[in-house]
C-alpha cells in the first residue's frame, strides 16, 4: 500500500490551522484557542491512516476540516490534487460523493424519526436523486444487517447495529475515502471488534481508503497502515510502519500507558506525570515540554519541526527516543 513518492495522494491536508473563539460577549472579548495548528497530511489511495491522540488534541477537528464540514482558518484541503478549500454548498457535492464520514456516537447520528430505509435513502434524497432499486437492501447486506431491518427505527437497534447503519449510509455514494471518527469509542469491546472486522472486510473488498480517528493506540496499531500522533493540535509523530518503535517521547508514553491484557506481563507502568494543559494557554515551545521526561532547554524556547527519520516516518522532537 506504499505509494510512490511522486503519486498524487487522494486526500491531502496542507498546513491546516483552525482556531476557535469562545465566550465572547457584547462588551467582552472572547478567548481563542488553536484546535489544529499547521497540520499537513497525505493520504494515499488504499491507505488506512490512523490519527491518535487524547482528548483535546484536535483529532476530531481535523476530521471535520478534512470533510470540509468546517472551514480552516488557514491551509488547504486537496482531493485528488484539486483544491477544495474554497468550495461551499452545492459546489462541494462532487467531493461529498467521494469523501464520506462515519461518526462516533451511533445514538445521535441517526434521525430518530427516520426508518433505516429513510436513513439509507437520505444520501440520494439530499441531492435530489432517486436511489437505484435494491440499493437499500444491497447496503444492508454489505454491512451485515438483516434486510428485515429496513423498516425499523433506530431506537429498536443496539449500538453496534446503529453503527452499521452509519457505515452503510457513508457507503451509499460508493465513496473513495471514508473518514472514521472514533467509530467504536462508544461501543462495548466485543462490538468494537465486530465493527473493526467489518471495516477491514470493506477495505479489502471495496478498495476504500480510511482516515481513522481514535484515542486507542493499540487499536490503531492493529488496524492502520500508517499512524499520525497528535498532541495539543500538532502532529508530533508520523509512523510509516505501525509496528515501529515510537520515537517521540509522547508516543512512547502513550504506549507505556496502555495496559496489556496479560497478567504475566505486568509492565512496571510509569504513568506520564500531569495532564494535558489548557489549549487556551499554550507554551511557546514544544507543547509536550511541560510533561516530557526528556525535555531540554531549547524545547521550551522553540517548537521542533516535523522532520524525517527513517523511511517515510517523521518526528517533531529535538531529543527523540533512540530507535
Amino acid at each position, binding site marked *: 500500500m506504499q505509494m510512490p513518492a511522486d503519486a498524487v495522494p487522494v486526500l491531502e491536508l496542507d498546513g491546516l490551522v483552525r482556531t476557535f473563539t469562545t465566550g465572547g460577549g457584547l462588551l467582552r472579548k472572547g478567548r481563542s484557542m488553536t484546535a489544529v495548528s499547521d497540520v499537513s497530511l497525505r493520504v494515499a489511495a488504499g491507505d488506512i491512516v490512523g490519527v491518535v491522540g*487524547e*482528548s483535546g488534541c484536535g483529532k476530531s477537528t481535523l476530521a471535520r476540516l478534512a470533510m470540509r464540514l468546517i472551514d480552516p482558518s488557514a491551509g488547504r484541503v486537496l482531493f485528488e490534487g484539486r483544491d477544495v478549500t474554497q468550495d461551499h454548498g452545492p459546489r462541494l457535492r462532487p467531493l461529498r460523493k467521494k469523501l464520506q464520514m462515519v461518526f462516533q456516537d451511533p445514538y445521535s447520528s441517526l434521525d430518530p424519526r427516520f426508518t433505516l430505509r429513510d436513513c439509507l435513502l437520505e444520501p440520494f434524497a439530499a441531492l435530489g436523486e432517486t436511489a437505484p432499486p435494491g440499493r437499500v437492501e444491497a447496503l444492508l447486506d454489505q454491512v451485515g444487517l438483516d434486510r428485515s431491518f429496513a423498516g425499523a427505527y433506530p431506537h429498536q437497534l*443496539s449500538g*453496534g*447495529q446503529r453503527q452499521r447503519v452509519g457505515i452503510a449510509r457513508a457507503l451509499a455514494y460508493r465513496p473513495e475515502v471514508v473518514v472514521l471518527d472514533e467509530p467504536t469509542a462508544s461501543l*462495548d*469491546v*466485543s*462490538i*468494537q*471488534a*465486530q*465493527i*473493526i*472486522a467489518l471495516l*477491514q472486510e470493506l477495505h479489502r473488498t471495496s478498495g476504500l481508503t480510511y482516515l481513522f480517528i481514535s*484515542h*486507542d*493506540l*493499540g*487499536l490503531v*496499531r*492493529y*488496524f492502520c497502515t500508517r499512524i499520525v500522533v497528535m498532541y495539543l493540535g500538532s502532529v508530533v509523530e508520523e509512523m510509516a510502519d505501525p*509496528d515501529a518503535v515510537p520515537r517521540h517521547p509522547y508516543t512512547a*508514553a*502513550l504506549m*507505556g*500507558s*496502555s*495496559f*496489556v*491484557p*496479560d*497478567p*504475566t506481563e*505486568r*509492565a512496571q*507502568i510509569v*504513568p*506520564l*506525570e500531569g*495532564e*494535558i494543559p489548557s489549549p487556551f494557554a499554550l507554551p511557546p515551545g514544544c507543547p509536550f515540554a511541560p510533561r516530557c521526561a526528556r525535555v531540554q532547554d531549547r524545547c521550551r524556547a522553540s517548537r521542533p519541526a516535523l522532520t524525517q527519520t527513517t523511511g517515510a516516518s517523521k518526528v517533531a522532537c529535538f531529543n527523540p527516543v533512540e530507535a
Partner: protein
Amino acid sequence: MLLDVRDLSLRIGTVGLLDGLSFSVDRGEVLGLVGESGSGKSLTALALTGLAARMGATITAGSVVFDGTDLVGLKESAYRRLRGKRIGFITQNPMSALDALVTIGDQVDQVSRLHLGLSKRAARAHTVEILSRLRIPEAEVVARAYPHNLSGGMKQRVVIAMALAADPDLIIADEPTTALDVTVQAQIVMMLADLVRKRDLGLILITHDMSVVAQICDKVCVLYAGRVAESGPVRQIFAAPRHPYTEALIGCIPRDGMAPGSLRGIPGTVAAVSQYGADCCRFAPRCGRADARCRTQQPLPVVTGTGGMLACHHPVDSPVKEAADADAR
C-alpha cells in the same frame, strides 16, 4: 473474608437483573468485576452499598456478608453509618461526581466530620493531608477551589480522597477510569493498586476493560447479563479461560503482533433485560459452542479447582459434542 457475596439476586419491578452472583474479596486484594454494558456490574456496586433501593431495586435472595455481618436487610440508618466510613465508593464519571457549588475541601471534609467526628479545622488538615498523599500539588489551594477549576484526573483524585477520608476497609470503584484519557487512566489505576497494598484494603474494581484487570487485579469475576460466567484468580483466567465468553472477551483486545483480521469480536448483541431467559445460558445465542442444552437449561455455577466458579455446559477445554447442532444454528 472481608466481603463475601453469596447468590445475590436482585430485581427492579418484575425484571430480575442480577441472578445468583457470588464473589468475595479480602483485605489487600483486588477483585475485578468485569462485564460489558448490560451485565449488571454497576447495579452490583449499588447493591453492595445499599443504594440499589434508591433505584427501586429489591434484593430477592442471597447474602452480602461484610466483616461478619450480613448487609442484606440491614436498616438504612445502620447502612448509612457503614457507607463512607467502612465502605468507600468511587463513581464512574469524575466530571459529574462532585457538587459544583461546594468547594473541594468542604466536600472531602464532610466525610471525616461525619464519620470521624473531626472538628472543622481538624477535618481540613486531614483533607489536605490526604490530597497531598494522592499527589495533588498545592493541596491547600486546591481545597479552596471549586470542582470546575480542576481537570478530570484531579477530580478523580478528589473522589478517591473522599472514599479514603474515613479510612475504610473496602473500596468499590465503578469504572473509575473510563471517562479519563489514556495517560491519566494509567496514573489513577496505578494509584489504586498502590493504595490497596499500602493500606491493606479490599478493592472491588468494576470495569469493562480486561487489560486493566490483567494489570492490577488478583481475582476476577466475569459477568454476563446479570449472571456470573466465570471467576477465579487472574493468572488462571487469562492463561486458560474456560468460559467461551471470557475467552472471546480477552480476544477482543487488539495486541501487538496480531495478524490483520484476527480480531473478530463476538457476534450478536446482549439481549435486552426484558428478554433475559431463565432456563438457558444467556450467552448461548452468541456462543459458538452452544447446543440445544444451552438453550433450555441454565448452566449452574460450579466451583472449580482454583477456587473460582464456572457456569458453562461446554467449557472451552471440553470437546464440543454437538458441534453439528451448533453449526445448524
